[in-house]
């Protein structure tokens, strides 16, 4: 039995590895802000959100759409989702409390613990089935339909009856029947608990029918060592069945765990949805296009992390840049360049893990890797110069980059003079571009930017942080050629509170 709410035909692996550049992505895109909003102070939700978002780049379009449909169901039935999620959490939490005998050396103790856990799970499974039956018709997505139908079929009344029967059998009111063979030194080995076969006529069959001879002896009440020996023998007999039952309860536990993990992602999405709709930010389900196409079109795309931090609606950007591979963004400081760059990265990650995106409309080709190359403030290692450090990070990226990657540069290669920095950037970008890697490059390197502008490339687009006449910024980017100067002067004046 599988939940299959993250993938159509396999489990979501919570242990899977994150991309190698996990730390850079989290830092540069300020992903923790997003995870925290989804987690709503629940560490488990945080972990699942982080896993799901950072591993989303592996998903194909089918998986993205599969999750979108499920997420729509969740948005329509938030209370049902919460109920199932809470049920799974309750099953898991209550199982933990039945801790006695968990590490026991006695099969008898293991068995009775397992029986207790099984009784608890039985109750939970019945509830789960109730929920499924009640809500079957309210859900539209393939994922939920399959999930609920599975619960309906697999957890039938007959099945619950079989479990009840086992629970009764395992109390051994008729004693235990153990088979054995002769092992080393003729000691008994291969102890196996046997089913005491019922006869049609009555309850327990006459175990020792006339045909086969049997011998009986008794352990006297005063024979303590005999009683111990007998109880060990009994333990050996029920060892296998105790193991089987304990493992079965573990399996059921992992079933609940899987439900919890996979729903946790959607619960996280619901949490984020609530925060963003409260501040009236638009959300939409994006349109992913195949990995080998080059598309990036959106309306009112905003930096979700900035919105979450500011707790207010922020300015979004529009762009229609299908067929473009190189995006060079120039313009004023504090003009929304970094925010824009972040919104590109965040929306891509969110789309690819099956979430809604922070935009009125969003469509892009999916990618298989996302890299960020941001200017770092300090070189903590003291071993290499700043440019060394930048180039070394660049080299790491090159080790892992693929044709269908997206890479975000933020003021890279500015650690040296403009001419050198431009030349380095020019060489790197030319190479990346030849491989059709999608590049977003925020830069003050005028020489670099204008050299590409002058090439009149079909697949390049130049954006500029727009400046109003009064010197204040709109945070809107417009398509425009690179300018030689940026607006540091403004910034200076604004900070030093100097008037025009």
């Amino acid at each position: 039995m599988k939940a299959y709410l993250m993938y159509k035909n396999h489990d979501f692996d919570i242990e899977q590895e994150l991309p190698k550049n996990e730390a850079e992505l989290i830092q540069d895109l300020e992903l923790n802000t997003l995870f925290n909003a989804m987690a709503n102070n629940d560490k488990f939700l945080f972990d699942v959100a982080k896993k799901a978002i950072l591993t989303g780049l592996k998903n194909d379009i089918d998986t993205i759409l599969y999750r979108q449909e499920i997420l729509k169901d969740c948005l329509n039935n938030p209370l049902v989702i919460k109920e199932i999620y809470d049920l799974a959490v309750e099953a898991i939490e209550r199982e933990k409390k039945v801790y006695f005998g968990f590490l026991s050396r006695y099969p008898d103790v293991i068995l009775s613990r397992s029986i207790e856990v099984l009784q608890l799970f039985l109750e939970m499974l019945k509830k789960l089935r109730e929920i499924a039956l009640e809500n079957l018709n309210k859900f539209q997505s393939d994922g939920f339909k399959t999930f609920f139908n599975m619960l309906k079929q697999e957890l039938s009344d007959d099945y619950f009856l079989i479990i009840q029967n086992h629970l009764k059998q395992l109390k051994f009111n008729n004693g235990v029947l153990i088979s054995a063979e002769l092992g080393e030194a003729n000691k008994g080995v291969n102890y196996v608990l046997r089913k005491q076969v019922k006869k049609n006529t009555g309850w327990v069959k006459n175990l020792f029918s006339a045909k086969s001879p049997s011998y009986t002896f008794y352990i006297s009440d005063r024979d303590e060592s005999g009683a111990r020996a007998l109880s060990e023998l009994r333990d050996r007999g029920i060892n296998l069945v105790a193991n089987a039952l304990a493992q079965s309860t573990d399996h059921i536990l992992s079933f609940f765990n899987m439900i919890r993990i996979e729903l946790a992602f959607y619960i996280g999405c619901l949490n984020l949805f609530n925060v963003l709709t409260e501040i009236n930010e638009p959300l939409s389900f994006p349109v992913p296009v195949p990995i080998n196409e080059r598309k990036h079109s959106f309306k009112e795309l905003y930096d979700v992390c900035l919105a979450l931090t500011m707790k207010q609606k922020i300015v979004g950007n529009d762009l229609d840049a299908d067929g473009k591979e190189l995006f060079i963004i120039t313009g004023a400081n504090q003009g929304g360049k970094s925010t824009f760059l972040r919104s590109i990265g965040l929306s891509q990650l969110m789309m690819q893990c099956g979430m809604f995106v922070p935009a009125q409309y969003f469509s892009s080709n999916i990618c298989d890797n996302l890299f960020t190359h941001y200017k770092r403030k300090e070189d903590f290692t003291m071993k290499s110069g700043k440019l060394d450090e930048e180039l070394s990070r660049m080299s790491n990226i090159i080790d892992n980059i693929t044709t269908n990657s997206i890479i975000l540069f933020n003021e890279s290669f500015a650690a040296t003079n403009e001419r050198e920095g431009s030349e380095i950037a020019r060489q790197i970008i030319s190479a990346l571009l030849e491989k059709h890697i999608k590049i977003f490059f925020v830069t003050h390197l005028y020489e670099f930017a204008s050299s590409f502008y002058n090439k009149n490339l079909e697949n390049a687009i130049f954006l500029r942080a727009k400046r109003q006449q009064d010197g204040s910024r709109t945070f809107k980017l417009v398509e425009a050629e690179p300018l030689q100067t940026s607006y540091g002067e403004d910034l200076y004046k604004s900070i030093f509170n100097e008037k025009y």
Partner: protein
Amino acid sequence: MENLKKNFFSILFKKSEDKLRELDTSQPSFFVDLNLDQVIDTITIGKKEYNLKPFFYIHLNDIETIIYRQEIFKELENIALFESIKSFARSINTMRDYISKGEKLYYKLQKERYFLEAVEIYCNAVTSLFNFLSSFEIKSLGLLNFKKYLIEYVNSDIFISLKEETKKLIADLNSIKYCIHIKGNTVKVRKYENEPDYSVEVEATFEKFKQGAVKDYLVKFTSPVDMNHVEARILELVAQLYSDIFSNIDNYCIKNKNFFDETISTFDREIQFYITYIEYMNIFKNSGLNFCYPIISNETKEIYNYDGFDLALAYKLLNENSKIVCNDFYLKDKERIFIVSGPNQGGKTTFARMFGQLHYLATLGCPVTGKSAQLYLFDKLFTHFEKEENIKNLHGKLQDDLISIYNILSEATSNSIIILNEIFNSTTLKDAIFLGKKIIQKIIDLDLICVYVTFIDELVSLSEKIVSMVSNVDPNNTALRTYKILRKPAGGLAYAISIAQKYKLTYEDLKERIKS
């Protein structure tokens, strides 16, 4: 078969009188000086049950037996043969283990099972060794005789019926399957009647929840092989259920009490001499060191050995991952005596020990260290090494030393080997020179082979029988000893030259450096 036994005494001894010497051996007196005690300890470690040390104490003064053993050693270089014999030995060991386990148990039904298993292991071991040897072309006389014996034994009625009966009884026991029903303090025992496995059913019920690997909850029961009275009672009842099988076993055990063939048993022990020594050699061979089969002669005193080493020291150094230095020596024509001098801690004592070890192990028929060797079949080996603990009483020590040396010289013949190490160190130089010369002269007169480690250079020029060997230091770093012992004139010059080399100021160096 009796006839065969007369032809074949032992895989170790060609002559029956040598075999008997085993009963009356003790560690030879020179063992400690040569560190041979350590060598033999290492070789026999973990093989105590075979009592192998006496084999290493019996000095063979007989080229025929030495060659008998060398041939066997050579034959055992075949890995398949070696492994097959080793596996035989391991099985016999397991067999012994089972017998002794059985002896320790209280209940007869348990003892009998161990006995049966022991015999089965024995039969299998003998059979697989036989199978291997049947298709293996043996060259050495010793193994050839053993093979002949084995073929006869395996085809004997005694062995055939032992093997078959054992196999059948064990199969009978393994076919037994019974049921125990426990309710309260009542225990019923009967034959198993195909009742289904209940845990399989439980597993099947919950199969649908299976997500992946889960923890193993099986409790590991560790209990001694001996039984408690409840188990014993159950076993008795099982024996009653299957009374025909168990009464056959009773008879079998009585009949086959002495199943272990004496010649096979002797072979099992004696072959360990070869196995242990080969495994010991392999430790060194794996580190790139050489072993060879020495030519042994009592006719010529021309001897040589190339790339030999001190086994005890090398074993220690290998464990420390340190470098092992090999040395060469030879005696030609009238040469008889090595006088070893040079810097202290330069490997002089090691050289002396190596020399002694080589000769002693060669006369056991064993391969020795080095790429090639010709060694002398001595009648007696004498050593006298400086003992450090006697500093208190110098006069007494000198006296003791002289008494020892006197005894050695009076027992030694021209066929003996004498190894003297740093004697007279603690006396005055004048005395030492005087005594040294006297003793060397006696050794020269005896015409025997000798290694004499000393600081007295003057002894070297006394006779053409004397060869001077000198320990050395690294030319580039005079503080670093090379442990190389080289044939060259004694004296301090070697030291001065090595310093010159370090600064490239030797004649040769200067010729190169000063250009025309």
